[in-house]
C-alpha cells in the first residue's frame, strides 16, 4: 500500500499547475469563478488551448489520439483544472470519441475524428425522449430505411447545447418490435438537415442549456449509421461506461467547497462572518469531511482502474456520492446568501452584461445555482437508477 502521491504524480501535478498558470485566460477564469455562463466560443477556445499545449484528449487513450494518462493522472488534471477555475472539457466529445473509434466506419473516422477535441464540430446527445427518461429503451423516435437514407421521425428532449450543435448522435428505433437490444440503432444526424427543429427549454434558474429537438421526416444517409443496424443499444451502453467515469467529480466537489467557504466568509451576521457561526461552521466542516471521504473513495477506485474503466457499480457509487455532496454544498451556499439572496438578475450571468456596481455576480447566482444543481442527481442516470445497478450487480439482490 502506498498512501501518498508518488514523485512522478507530484511532478505531473506541478506540470498541470504550470500549464494552468501560464495558459488559462484570466477572463475565462473570472467567468467560471463568478458563475457567469460560458459561451460556445469560450469552450472552443479552452479546448484549443489544451490541444495547442499538446494535451489533446486528456481522458482518451493514446490509440484514440489522446494522452493515455492513467486514472490517477486524469484525476490530478481534472482536479487542478477545477481548482484553477478552468472551463470544463465538453463531455460529448469524450463520449463520441470512443464510440467512433470502436464502432465507426473508416469513412466516419476520417470525417469526424481529426481535431475532434478542437470542437470544430459541436456534438450533442439525442437520447432522452418525452416518454423515455430513466427507461431509455422505451424511446419511440423511428428511423425507416428508404433506399440510401433513413427517414427519421420523433422528438428528443433535455438535449444540452443542441442550439450550438452541428451534429447529434442519437438513438432511434429501426425495428417496430423486439427487445431494445434488437431494435435500436445509433445514428449521426446533421443538425442542419431539413426537418430538424430545435426549441429552447428555459431551466428553473432562468438559463438556456436544454432543448427539445424535433425530427420531422429528416433524411439521414445510411452511411451515418454507427455499428450494425439494431445494435445501437450495445453502442450506447459502451458510451455510457465512458460517461460515468468523469462523474466522480473530485475536482468539481473541491471547487464547490471553495465556493461554499467563500459564501460563508463573505456574508455576516451580528458582525461576524458566517464561517464563525457555530451552526454554519458545523455544516461546513461536515461537508469538508464528506468531500475528503469521497476523494479517498475515488482514489481507491482509481488505483484499481488502470486496466479500463471502473466497474459500473463502483462508478455508480461515486456518482451517487459526488452528486449528493454537490447538492448539499449548493444548499449551504444558498443558506449563506442572507436577505439579498432572493434578488436574482439572470441577465447578469450572460456574457456582455454591463456591470451593475451594486450587484455581486457570485452572490447573484447562489440561489439559481442551488436550483440548477438539482439536475445532477437526475442526469447521467438518476440516483435511483444507480442504486438499482449497484443492488443488482454488487449486492446481488
Amino acid at each position, binding site marked *: 500500500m502506498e*498512501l501518498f502521491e508518488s514523485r512522478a504524480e507530484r511532478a505531473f501535478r506541478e506540470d498541470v499547475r504550470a500549464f494552468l498558470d501560464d495558459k488559462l485566460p484570466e477572463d475565462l477564469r473570472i467567468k467560471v469563478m463568478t458563475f457567469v455562463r460560458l459561451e460556445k466560443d469560450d469552450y472552443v477556445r479552452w479546448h484549443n488551448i489544451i490541444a495547442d499545449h499538446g494535451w489533446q484528449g486528456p481522458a482518451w487513450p493514446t490509440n484514440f489520439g489522446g494522452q493515455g494518462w492513467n486514472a*490517477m493522472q486524469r484525476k490530478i488534471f481534472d482536479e487542478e483544472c477545477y481548482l484553477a477555475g478552468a472551463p470544463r472539457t465538453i463531455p460529448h466529445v469524450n463520449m463520441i470519441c470512443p464510440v467512433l473509434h470502436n464502432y465507426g466506419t473508416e469513412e466516419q473516422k476520417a470525417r469526424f475524428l481529426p481535431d475532434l477535441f478542437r470542437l470544430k464540430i459541436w456534438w450533442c446527445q439525442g437520447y432522452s425522449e418525452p416518454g423515455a427518461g430513466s427507461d431509455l429503451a422505451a424511446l419511440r423516435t423511428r428511423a425507416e430505411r428508404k433506399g440510401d437514407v433513413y427517414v427519421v421521425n420523433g422528438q428528443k428532449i433535455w438535449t444540452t447545447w443542441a442550439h450550438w450543435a452541428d451534429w447529434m448522435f442519437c438513438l432511434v428505433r429501426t425495428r417496430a418490435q423486439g427487445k431494445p437490444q434488437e431494435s435500436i440503432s445509433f445514428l449521426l444526424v446533421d443538425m442542419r438537415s431539413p426537418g430538424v427543429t430545435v426549441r429552447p427549454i428555459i431551466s428553473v434558474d432562468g438559463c438556456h442549456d436544454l432543448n427539445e429537438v424535433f425530427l420531422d421526416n429528416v433524411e439521414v444517409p445510411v452511411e451515418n449509421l454507427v455499428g450494425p443496424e439494431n445494435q445501437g443499444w450495445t453502442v450506447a451502453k459502451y458510451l455510457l461506461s465512458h460517461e460515468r467515469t468523469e462523474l466522480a467529480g473530485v475536482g468539481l466537489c473541491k471547487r464547490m467547497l471553495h465556493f461554499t467557504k467563500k459564501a460563508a466568509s463573505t456574508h455576516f451576521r451580528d458582525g461576524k462572518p458566517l464561517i464563525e457561526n457555530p451552526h454554519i461552521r458545523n455544516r461546513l466542516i461536515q461537508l469538508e469531511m464528506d468531500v475528503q471521504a469521497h476523494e479517498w473513495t475515488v482514489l481507491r477506485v482509481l488505483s484499481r482502474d488502470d486496466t479500463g474503466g471502473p466497474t459500473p457499480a463502483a462508478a455508480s457509487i461515486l456518482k451517487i456520492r459526488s452528486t449528493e455532496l454537490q447538492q448539499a454544498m449548493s444548499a449551504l451556499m444558498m443558506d449563506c446568501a442572507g436577505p439579498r439572496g432572493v434578488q436574482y438578475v439572470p441577465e447578469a450571468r450572460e456574457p456582455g452584461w454591463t456591470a451593475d456596481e451594486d450587484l455581486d455576480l457570485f452572490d447573484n447566482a447562489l440561489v439559481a445555482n442551488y436550483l440548477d444543481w438539482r439536475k445532477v442527481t437526475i442526469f447521467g442516470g438518476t440516483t435511483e437508477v444507480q442504486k438499482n445497478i449497484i*443492488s443488482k450487480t454488487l449486492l446481488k439482490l
Partner: protein
Amino acid sequence: MDFTLTQEQQMLDEAVRRFVEKEYVQSGQDDSDQEPGYPLSRWQALADMGLLGLLVPPDHGGLGKDMTDVFVVMRALGQGLIREPYIGTALVAASMVARGGTDDQKSAWLPGIAEGSLTFALATEDCDRTPDPSGLEMRDGRLYGHKSAVLCGDSADWLIVPVSSRSPDDTGTRVFCIDARTPGVSHVRYTNIDGQRSAEITFDGVPVDAANELCSGGHPASLLEWGLDIGRMALCAEAVGALETLLQQTLEHLATRQQFGQSLGRFQVLQHRAVDMMVSVELAHSVALMAAAGIESGDDDTRRRYVSTCKAQMGRYIRHVCEQAIQTFGGMGMTREFEPTRYVRRLLAISMTWGNTEFHIDRYSEHMQ
C-alpha cells in the same frame, strides 16, 4: 498511490482472518466472564503470531510495521469482536514508548509487550459530569485524582496517565507510566455495552517514579496526542471490519428472509437501503485509510485533520449502518444474543471511544484550513 495489499500484507491479512475465524467466530461462546475479561490463551496466541509486536521495533523483539499494516490487522480483527487490550497495549503504548521512551524504558517494556507479558491501558479521559474535572495532579511527587472509562483499566499492568499542567509541582502536561499495583491506585470495574471492560480509577497519593516518565524534557502532550491518534485510527480500521461483517449479515438476511411470498431483497425500498449501507461501509474504509495516511505523513496538522475527519465520519457511518441493520432485521435486531447486534454494540462503543463525532468536529474546527 496504490491501495493494493503487498504480498506480505495479504499473508498477514489471511493469517489474522484465519485466527479470527477460529478464535472468535467458530467458538461462538461468550467468554467475557473469564478473567481478565478475555481468555489469556488468546492473548498469548496474539503474541505468538507476532501481532503484539506489530509496532514494536525489531531490535526490541517486534515487527516494526507501519499504519497500513495496522489497518490490515485491525480490519481483520474487527470481524471478530475482540475484547483484548490490543490497541492500548500493542499499538498505542508500544508506539509511545518506542518514540518517547528512554533506552531503559524501551528495554523494560517493549519486549514484554511483544511477548505478551505486559499490558497497558490509557488513563486519559476525565469524567465529564462536573464542569471542572480534577484530572490528575501531582503534589510532592505523588498523584491525586481520578480517571474515567479506562479501557481494560481493571486488568492492565501499566497505566499511561497525563498529569495536568495545573499541578503545583509542574508547568506543563507530563506523561507517566504507573504500575497499576502501586499502593494508592484503586479502581471500580464496569462492563461496557460491547462486553469489554473499563475502569474508573482513583489515584490517592500514588508515588511517582521519575524513571517512568515518558518523553521527559520533550513534548509529552504531543506524544500522547499522537499515540491517541494511532489508537483512533486503529479503532476505525477495526470498525471497517465490523461494518463489513454487519453489512454481510444484513445482505444474507435480505436474501433469505421470506415475507409476502418473496425474499425481502426483492423489495426495492430495501435494495436501496442496502445500497446506502454499502456506500457508508465503503466510505468508512476510505476514511480509515486516510487516517493511516495522516499518521504516516509525519505532519502534526495533517494528522489531526485526517484522524479527526476519520473518527467524526466513522461515527456517522456507524450510526447509519447500525440503525439500518437493526431496522432490516426487525424484531431479531432487538435481541441481545443475536450475532449482528453484538457487532452493533461493538461499533457503537468504537464510535464513543477517544472522542465521538462531535468531539472530532470540534477538534477539526481548530485545525480547519
